[in-house]
């Protein structure tokens, strides 16, 4: 009686799922538009950024020589001695010398003054690339006489024309050209420190090179093409570095430039990846909606004898195919973004970028798109395994509901692993990838929990006395089949990301503007010689300006730590003293008390030496002490311009470096350095721009060697730079915003699916259109609002943590930004909800029941 049934697999055509997938998709393609949009926006951002990064690194490789302008340079705060100069000279075919320093310049015709970077050049530098000027000949002609070429932004800012003169120190130069671009310098860089080039032979006549002046000397070399430098190069470099000079090669510059732009591109990649992740949520929710609509068809197919895996295969083929289409569209948009990014980032990038298509990024984009589609699609598709054929004869049978499945948990784990691997590939760092994956996963878990909590809370707090329409709308947030959790999660994540972008910008602006608050110093004068100190102080008082600080500065070098000099410390691995501690020049002050930016954290503050034979107890910063691996009572030997001074560490201080005032790693007590060669810094506050301009002009005319930092100008420049950075970030964030909107639309369509039958029944029972509109508006307003609140809460917590632990700053979120984000998300949610529901409200209930329920 009992006959064995065998499954003869070969009888099922392998191509049949493909055929069915094609047939089934014909009338469903429009429904997958959101899915394609979700994938394509995320992939577009990813491909665009990855291509940009690779393009940038490739160009840095190709244009490396022009970044430095020479094969190598040797720089230091003293001119290269002949012994070293010739050590390198015989390797090279040509050499150029540059002396550069910060100095005020004055444009006499317009009375404009500005702190600039004066670069005095001699020789044929640059050997690679060029100083782009207008007219082009000015780039070389300025070296032939008492001429200068000046940054074009500076000329525009101070209304200076060709033929005008610029006063550098005591000497005037005729301006014969505008500098448009300098090898290796960005536009942002030139905004911060605009450059004035003068011939090097005139430097002594400017009167700016005095004892204690901070002057840098660079010698540029071009390798001789016929000399093999490989044997002697390392020895020469060691010799120079051992003598306190920095040697910079094309490789060094390439690495340094690549590293800084890798940081920028990593940040943009994180934004792109977040767009992709939001896209994944869009994929998950749009496929969930899609699969929901297919449950009945699957039940029928199951009745007709189709196996569960075949049903999954049909839709998996569709998902993979649409994932491919979405990825291809994304790659195309990504390539277009890549064409625009060099334009957007031109201000930051020191080289010319010619966009080229980077195929590995496109291939990776396509693969990631397909894998993401399949993995996030499977989260819903595996539910089809549980669709009972009984659903075909009993609509509303329990299996129509896609239930939680252990396989979904497994796929969820695979998704997290995949995201981690993709991030690793993208960021090139397994640790950062892990942190970012953990943050994203944690954020989703937190938002999910918040969604659950809010849904539960709604049930408890809605009063029965509330008008029906509002009660109905709000009750939908916790009733069976509610979408509160999924919407709070998806909207919350999109909101959190967008809010964080704004908050980060707020944080940076707050951090900078705090420095310029009322009654804090805003003008710093430095390089003041001892004999100028009193007259400058008097001039400041004459202008009714307060002398807030007047600080002496003595330069010195560290010779020994606890009796170990540089070589001994290097050989003693237990000492753990870094080499830079001996190589750098220290700017040190002396005073008898702490200032308000300092806190004594260990030891005893000794402000004055009473007897010249007493031991000298100095105070150092705690961070510096940790780097030096020293404790209270340890011995430091300094070389103060030829005089050796033995000191002991008496105390550690914590320093608030953000304060606009002079802060020092090392502070001596009074009674030690008074007679040492020194210069001074004067700090004041100027409230009016006209007074500031007049004061600066007077200072530059009477004390040409004194430099002035105008904090208002710095703030303005920083604001300008931040604005440009924000533009780049916002440009990339557009993709996240776009994907967030798609996710929102998908989620709302999902809830429409759930609510449609209920709304149609309400209409059938006599609800007026206006009442339905109100119910729908209330539901979506609260859904959007809850999502926005959850996202904002997450963003605020994260930004506060970031402020506290990274920027060491207490972040106060802007209530205006919070309100704008909350309202924008809530009203977008209401608008999309109402637009989506117009069919239910406008058409006859029967028509809707027949076609869509």
């Amino acid at each position, binding site marked *: 009686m009992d006959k064995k049934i065998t499954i003869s697999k070969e009888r099922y055509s392998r191509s049949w799922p493909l055929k069915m997938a094609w*047939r*089934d998709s014909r009338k469903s393609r429009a429904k997958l538009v959101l899915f394609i949009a979700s994938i394509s926006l995320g992939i577009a951002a990813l491909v665009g950024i990855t291509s940009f990064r690779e393009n940038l690194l490739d160009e840095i490789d190709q244009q490396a020589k022009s970044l430095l302008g020479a094969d190598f340079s040797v720089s230091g705060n003293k001119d290269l001695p002949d012994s070293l100069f010739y050590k390198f000279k015989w390797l090279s075919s040509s050499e150029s010398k540059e002396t550069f320093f910060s100095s005020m310049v004055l444009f006499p015709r317009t009375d404009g003054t500005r702190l600039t970077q004066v670069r005095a050049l001699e020789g044929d530098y640059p050997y690679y690339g060029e100083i782009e000027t207008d007219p082009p000949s000015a780039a070389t002609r300025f070296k032939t006489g008492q001429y200068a070429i000046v940054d074009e932004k500076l000329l525009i800012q101070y209304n200076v024309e060709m033929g005008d003169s610029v006063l550098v120190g005591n000497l005037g130069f005729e301006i014969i050209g505008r500098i448009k671009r300098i090898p290796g310098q960005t536009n942002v860089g030139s905004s911060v420190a605009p450059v004035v080039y003068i011939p090097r032979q005139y430097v002594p006549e400017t009167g700016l090179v005095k004892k204690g002046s901070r002057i840098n000397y660079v010698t540029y070399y071009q390798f001789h093409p016929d000399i093999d430098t490989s044997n002697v190069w390392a020895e020469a470099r060691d010799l120079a570095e051992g003598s306190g000079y920095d040697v910079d090669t094309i490789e060094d510059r390439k690495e340094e430039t690549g590293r800084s732009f890798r940081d920028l591109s990593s940040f943009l990649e994180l934004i792109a990846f977040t767009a992709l992740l939001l896209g994944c949520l869009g994929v998950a929710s749009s496929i969930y909606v899609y699969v929901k609509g297919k449950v009945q068809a699957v039940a*029928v197919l199951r009745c007709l004898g189709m196996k569960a895996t075949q049903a999954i295969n049909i839709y998996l083929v569709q998902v993979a195919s649409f994932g491919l289409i979405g990825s291809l569209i994304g790659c195309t948009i990504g390539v277009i973004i890549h064409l625009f990014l060099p334009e957007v980032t031109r201000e930051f990038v020191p080289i010319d970028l010619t966009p080229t298509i980077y195929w590995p990024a496109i291939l990776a984009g396509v693969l990631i798109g397909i894998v993401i589609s399949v993995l996030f699609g499977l989260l819903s598709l595996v539910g089809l395994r549980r669709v009972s054929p009984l659903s075909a004869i009993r609509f509303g049978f329990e299996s129509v509901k896609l239930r939680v499945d252990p396989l979904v948990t497994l796929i969820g784990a695979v998704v997290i692993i995949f995201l981690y691997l993709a991030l690793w590939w993208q960021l090139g760092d397994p640790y950062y990838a892990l942190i970012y994956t953990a943050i994203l996963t944690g954020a989703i878990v937190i938002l999910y929990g918040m969604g659950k909590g809010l849904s539960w809370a709604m049930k408890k707090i809605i009063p029965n006395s509330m008008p029906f329409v509002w009660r109905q709308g709000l009750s939908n947030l916790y009733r069976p089949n509610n979408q509160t959790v999924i919407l709070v999660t998806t909207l919350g994540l999109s909101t959190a990301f967008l809010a964080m972008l704004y908050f980060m910008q707020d944080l940076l602006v707050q951090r900078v503007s705090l420095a310029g608050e009322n009654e804090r110093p805003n003008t710093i004068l430095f390089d003041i010689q001892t004999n100028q100190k009193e007259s400058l102080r008097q001039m400041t008082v004459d202008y009714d300006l307060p002398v807030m600080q007047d600080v002496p500065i003595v330069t010195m070098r560290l010779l020994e730590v606890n009796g170990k000099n540089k070589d001994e410390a290097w050989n003693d691995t237990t000492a753990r003293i870094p080499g830079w501690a001996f190589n750098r020049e220290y700017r040190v002050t002396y005073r008898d008390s702490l200032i308000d930016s300092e806190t004594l954290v260990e030891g005893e503050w000794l402000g004055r030496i009473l007897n010249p034979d007493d031991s000298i107890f100095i105070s150092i910063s705690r961070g510096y002490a940790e780097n030096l691996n020293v404790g209270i009572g340890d011995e430091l030997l300094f070389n103060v311009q030829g005089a050796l001074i033995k000191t002991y560490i008496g105390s550690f201080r914590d320093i608030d470096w953000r304060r606009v005032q002079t802060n020092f790693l090392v502070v001596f007590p009074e009674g030690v350095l008074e007679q040492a060669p020194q210069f001074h810094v004067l700090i004041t506050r100027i409230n009016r721009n006209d007074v500031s301009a007049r004061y600066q002009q007077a200072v530059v005319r009477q004390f040409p060697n004194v430099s002035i930092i105008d904090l208002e100008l710095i703030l303005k420049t920083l604001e300008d730079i931040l604005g440009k950075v924000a533009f780049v970030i916002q440009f990339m964030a557009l993709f996240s915003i776009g994907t967030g909107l798609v996710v929102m639309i998908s989620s709302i369509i999902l809830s429409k699916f759930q609510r449609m039958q209920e709304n149609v029944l309400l209409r059938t029972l006599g609800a007026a259109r206006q009442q339905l509109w109100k119910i729908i508006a209330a539901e979506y307003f609260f859904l959007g609002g809850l999502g926005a609140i959850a996202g904002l809460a997450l963003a605020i917590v994260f930004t506060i943590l970031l402020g506290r632990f990274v920027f060491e700053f207490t972040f106060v979120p802007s209530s205006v930004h919070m309100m704008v984000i909350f309202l924008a998300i809530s009203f977008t949610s209401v608008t999309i909800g109402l637009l989506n529901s117009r069919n239910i409200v406008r058409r006859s209930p029967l028509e809707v029941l027949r076609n869509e329920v």
Partner: protein
Amino acid sequence: MSAILTVEGITKIYQSGSKNVQVLDAIDFSVDEGKTMAIVGPSGSGKTTLLGLCAGLDSVTQGQITLNRILLNRLSEDELAQVRNRYVGFVFQNFQLIPTLTALENVMVPLELRGVGKARLRSEELLKRVGLGDRMDHYPTQLSGGEQQRVAIARAFSNDPKILFADEPTGNLDDETGKSVEDLLFEINREKGTTLIIVTHDVELAKKTDQIIRLKGGRIVD
């Protein structure tokens, strides 16, 4: 003549929340090959549940069902799917055509699932047989209720089933269309020699069958 369907002492209990609800209790009957049978009874009497169990759409709580000499209780879901594909046809009250497929493609599905060659040709013939030779490329939404049910009948017979289950096949149709669909169903059934099991409220339709089972409260009352 041997029995194509034997139902022995079946019970079906569903869990509803924390309660067990007994839908069918100690049902016994058998149907011979080529015969017709109607299952009648008031709403909630367990008719559709019984049909689902007999067709291998669901599993029994107790008892056993043998279909075409195959004991359904022992089969996995995939094996049951294969049994349905080889031996069973369905006609549903609400037609249950796949909305994204054309009429022809709907009919082809059971044959294609089975890997049968010439699926298109055989399906075209069946559609012509039910009078829809000129509507083959139409989608379900482009067809009237009667036409949709005729496509469903063509699909039900496309795999030459041994037994055909029809759940209220005329329940969603007006009297005239219902009558013509009913006639078509019996006509093709006779031609093919298929066993037909109909769940219906329609006493007149039930009278046309060889055997009637009346259900009430999950038990056979007659």
